[in-house]
């Protein structure tokens, strides 16, 4: 067993941004363990992509090619990567914690009798071994985990855990390998990805946004958020549970499965700041968080924080804004 296999993801539109963050994580694990990193791109017609990845610091790049990998299907990825890992016998397999990784990597690891160390925020080296950190209890605590199994071991890194590397100038050798996968054994029959018919609101161009989370408590209380939005000249948006409940339509959801926004001002009312929400709004110019829990993770990214009850703070804000407008 040796080496680190970093599995990079491409979609119809090109690279998944998190691919290079995971590659950075693999390179850091490589520096910590002294093992060389191979960047692997599964797909069909991905040689040029592998060559591109080769410039970002790995010791080698590999295009893992097959027609059965031209569109994503879980079984195809599990078979192709299972065969590759069986033959290469790497010490570590590193992945970006994308939706696609969520879909296939647990079963890939299970083939080797392993669990995936999923959604890690990073690792530290203690006594010569990497100790991986991941959020538990919705980010309220951090768990430090070890592998107690022999290699290979499987790790995925959360969005933002590592900063994508710079192109190195030096290009590692690129190999093309035909994947060992039998299309007849792929049981999932995927159809083409689609989007819902035109979204009624385009939050991505909003200058100011007031977003509500579960802290709003009840559908009837949304009126308060609407009033604050009106006073600020802002669009109304929400975290997922609000849209799951049907209190606001899906096209007002901000986050990994909703819209990505970058307004000048983002006011988060009663939103805890789960990573899946934060990835959709952390690019905002100025972030204000109102939350009664001083430990809420949203305060890690907020510029201004108010620890308090939104049912007191929001009305006070509305009044203050009206006062100064009049």
């Amino acid at each position, binding site marked *: 067993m040796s080496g680190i296999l970093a599995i990079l993801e491409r979609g119809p539109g090109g690279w998944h941004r998190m691919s290079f963050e995971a590659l950075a994580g693999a390179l850091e694990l490589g520096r910590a363990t002294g093992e060389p990193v191979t960047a692997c791109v599964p797909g069909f017609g991905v040689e040029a992509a592998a060559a591109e990845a080769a410039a970002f610091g790995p010791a080698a790049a590999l295009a893992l090619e097959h027609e059965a990998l031209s569109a994503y299907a879980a079984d195809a990825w599990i078979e192709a990567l299972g065969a590759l890992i069986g033959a290469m016998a790497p010490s570590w397999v590193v992945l970006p914690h994308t939706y696609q990784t*969520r879909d296939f990597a647990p079963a890939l690891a299970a083939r080797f009798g392993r669990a995936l160390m999923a959604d890690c925020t990073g690792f530290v080296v203690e006594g010569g071994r990497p100790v991986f950190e991941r959020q538990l209890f919705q980010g309220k605590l951090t768990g430090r985990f070890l592998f*107690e199994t022999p290699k290979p071991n499987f790790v995925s890194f959360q969005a933002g855990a590592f900063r994508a590397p710079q192109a190195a100038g030096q290009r590692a050798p690129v190999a093309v390998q035909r994947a060992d996968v039998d299309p007849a054994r792929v*049981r999932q*029959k995927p*159809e083409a990805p689609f989007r819902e018919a035109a979204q009624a609101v385009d939050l991505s161009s909003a200058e100011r946004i007031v977003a509500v989370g579960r802290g709003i408590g009840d559908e009837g209380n949304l009126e308060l958020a609407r009033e604050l939005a009106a006073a600020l000249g802002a669009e109304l948006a929400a975290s997922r549970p609000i849209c799951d409940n049907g209190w606001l339509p899906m096209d007002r959801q901000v986050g990994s499965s909703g819209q990505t926004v970058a307004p000048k001002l983002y006011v988060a009312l009663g939103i805890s700041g789960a990573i899946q929400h934060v990835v959709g709004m952390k690019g905002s110019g*100025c972030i204000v968080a109102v939350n009664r829990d001083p430990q809420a993770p949203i305060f890690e990214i907020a510029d201004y924080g108010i620890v308090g009850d939104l049912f007191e703070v929001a009305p006070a804000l509305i009044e203050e804004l009206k006062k100064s407008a009049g």
Partner: protein
Amino acid sequence: MKILVAVKQVPARDLPVEPAPSGLWIAEAGLSYEMNEPDAYALEAALRLKESGGGEVVAVSAGPERVQSVLREALAKGADRAIHVAAEGEAALGLDPVAAAALLEAAVREEQPDLVLTGLQSDDTGTGQTGVVLAARLGWPHATLVVAIEPGQGAVRARRELEGGWFQHVTLPLPAVLTVQSGIARLRYATLMGIKRAKTKEIRRLEVELEGSRGGLRLAGLAQPRRVRQTQFLEGSAAEQASKLVEKLRFEARVL
């Protein structure tokens, strides 16, 4: 269609959690528990499939005695039967998805359902893997992040959520495992009648030998997160906080 739904009992999301003195789990005194949120949606999806196409819904939960309360809740909402896979100690915590899947697998092998629904991810340990590992152990196909389910002849067509507002349909032969994302359908409440009826429904207990079913993840410690704060906190009464904020937004951040 016979559907098995995996429901996990997790600490209530609104309560603070603290590491236990051992540092290897949380202090359990004073905790209250609830049904894992995505699992409530998985149950809802199962009940709707039964209402439209007939069949049976069996709820299963693995853990100590207390998990029977989420099974009662599932029964009150309309599940026909329930299975409690008895598990104590580390295997019951869900830190290792291979162990969790092995516990559920025992119930699936006994029941031989057409479809297994799990939640996408648990709110406590959040490994997001148990359903997929379960499918791998059973040799069944799977799909994750499912937000709609259409039953077909010997197959199921699932709508999967992708990132950034994209979706995709995927068709799988049955039996299969689907992991359900929150929001799949509006959740129902248990009726008084349902709660009454649940008392007469069966919760069967299953003992499982877990020998060798571990995925190799070991919790070495729990800690308060290292918070990297850049936040300027505004103090005072709500009115003072509000006026400070408006001033900052106007003159410091210049966004008003």
